[in-house]
């Protein structure tokens, strides 16, 4: 099934049950608004897509800048190469496609043409992770963080909400090297504040605490905050870090968490084999014994069964309650 068709099958709309009383938003809208705003200011901004004008939210961009929207059709390998060629002419290409097709189909192009060649292209992995719910594992991309993290020379950004998505788009346009942005489709509440600024290679401290640290990315950030609230009720003060940048990795923040708190829980809508949790584990594993604190890595370990995004997040243990349980387990069993 094409991404367009996938987009029309509204499998994941509606609000998150974890925070039914809080408004939630699709990050793609913020992505599209910011891209359009930048394009009005800077004529070097172009968008490239694989027939995903609708699902990448590029309809308004095409209306306003028809010449600067390059739709190469359903051909991801060519799409990524085209992005590299455009960048070599001083243009700033945002190459947009559903994350499974962008990162899997064109992985060698991402490696050779973008990361190794250092063409400053912005790869936009739309509707990542479990966003396509019932459409199944062919349309899921829990692997994208593992694959991209294996490549040197490319930033990986996972914005947690609307504001951070805007900031990520603007930062990537200014950055002289390649960036991958994971643009979420599953609706999430706002978690950052008016004054919070996305800083390259830095986790954002959303909540202070000295008992344990929860490091979460994307969809899981709001759930981590709810978990921290529930933990407080039982007397546990949890530090919550928003891992918007997976690469470069905020090693200092991870070390600080290991030295200053008694356990760490990571949570992401991704495979545990090479994403945020694996990155954190590799830092902690190299620390001296007293700082090698208990760690729980929450994420996916197998292909998803049939179900909505919400259902699958529950299935894979990625609810606020699961974060609470993992935290309590880490604190009590080490």
């Amino acid at each position: 099934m094409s991404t367009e068709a996938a987009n029309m099958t509204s499998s994941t709309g509606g609000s998150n049950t974890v925070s039914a009383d809080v408004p939630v938003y699709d990050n793609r809208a913020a992505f599209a608004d910011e891209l359009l705003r930048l394009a009005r200011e800077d004529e070097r901004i172009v968008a490239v897509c694989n027939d995903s004008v609708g699902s990448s939210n590029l309809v308004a961009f095409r209306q306003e800048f028809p010449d600067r929207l390059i739709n190469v059709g359903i051909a991801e390998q060519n799409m990524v190469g085209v992005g590299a060629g455009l960048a070599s002419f001083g243009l700033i290409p945002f190459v947009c496609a559903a994350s499974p097709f962008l990162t899997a189909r064109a992985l060698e192009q991402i490696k050779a043409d973008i990361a190794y060649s250092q063409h400053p292209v912005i790869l936009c992995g739309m509707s990542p992770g479990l966003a396509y719910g019932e459409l199944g594992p062919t349309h899921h991309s829990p692997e994208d963080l593992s694959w991209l993290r294996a490549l040197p020379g490319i930033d990986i950004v996972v914005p947690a909400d609307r504001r951070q998505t805007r900031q990520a788009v603007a930062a990537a346009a200014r950055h002289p090297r390649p960036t991958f942005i994971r643009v979420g489709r599953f609706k999430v509440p706002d978690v950052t504040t008016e004054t919070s600024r996305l800083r390259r290679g830095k986790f954002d401290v959303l909540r202070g605490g000295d008992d344990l640290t929860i490091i979460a990315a994307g969809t899981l950030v709001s759930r981590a905050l709810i978990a921290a609230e529930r933990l407080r009720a039982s007397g546990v003060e949890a530090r919550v870090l928003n891992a918007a940048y997976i690469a470069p990795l905020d090693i200092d923040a991870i070390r600080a968490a290991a030295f200053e708190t008694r356990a760490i829980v990571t949570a992401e809508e991704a495979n545990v084999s090479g994403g945020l949790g694996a990155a954190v584990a590799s830092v902690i594993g190299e620390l001296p014994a007293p700082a090698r604190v208990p760690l729980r890595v929450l994420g996916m370990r197998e292909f998803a069964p049939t179900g909505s995004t919400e259902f699958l997040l529950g299935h894979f243990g990625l609810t606020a309650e699961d974060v609470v349980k993992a935290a309590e387990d880490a604190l009590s069993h080490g």
Partner: protein
Amino acid sequence: MLSTDHAQVERWRKRRTQLAAATPDQRRELLADTARQTRRSVVRMIRTAGQGHIGGDFSVADILTTLFSYTLRVDPAAPSARGTDRFILSKGHCAASLYSTLADAGYFPVRALETFMRPLSELNGHPNRTKIPGVETNTGPLGHGLPVAVGQAMGARLTGSDTRVFVVLGDGELQEGSNWEALMAASHFRLDNLVIIVDRNRLQQGARTEDTNGLEPLEARLRAFGCEVRRVDGHDFDALIEAFRPAGENRPVAVIADTVKGKGVSFMEDRVEWHHKVPTPEQTDQALKELA
């Protein structure tokens, strides 16, 4: 990053001026001499490095010579400057030929060629744009150069530049599907500033292309994908110059250059094993004698 050899750039500029004013006979002779020097350089580099892809280096040598000594509007002292043409060697394994050609034009000092594939050399077995001026994108895995060239041709149009983009593909490389994605886009977007050159030496690593996964009828296929197809003898400088002229129609040009793998050295010509065989000291002497 290697740096420009300005004295060599001057010598190259002088030769280009000579070529532009030469009679057809003089022009052929000058280009043949340059190509011969490239092949001699390749033999020495591969002999010293103990590895390389000599057969394909030789089939593409006359194409590279024609482009860099005659056709391309480039400035080795300012690669990728606005208004200059762009070149991509998609068959990146033939780096020795490319490096020799770029050094001859002064993109970097000729003596750097001695470091080919040595530890920490800028001159890897496949070209790297972050280390070598004149290299537009890192190639090596096949099927990557044409999509990037398509993006460059689009970029030239979007930025109002009259740049022409030239890309050389190996023929076996056309078995990669990404090329056909790119060809569809090149004709759909009517990229008449793009010249796709196929080094049609009919051999790939292990066998003849037609015994592996046949490309013929190649002309008809490229035409069906929307290209203006020109078929020439890839060792005939006059024919190559003619084939590299701007598009006659509002679509990309595909030049099928019929070549001989190992061209120039009798015992290497059209022999599949010389895809990446390394000459012995005796074979090296013999090859240099034939290329004298």
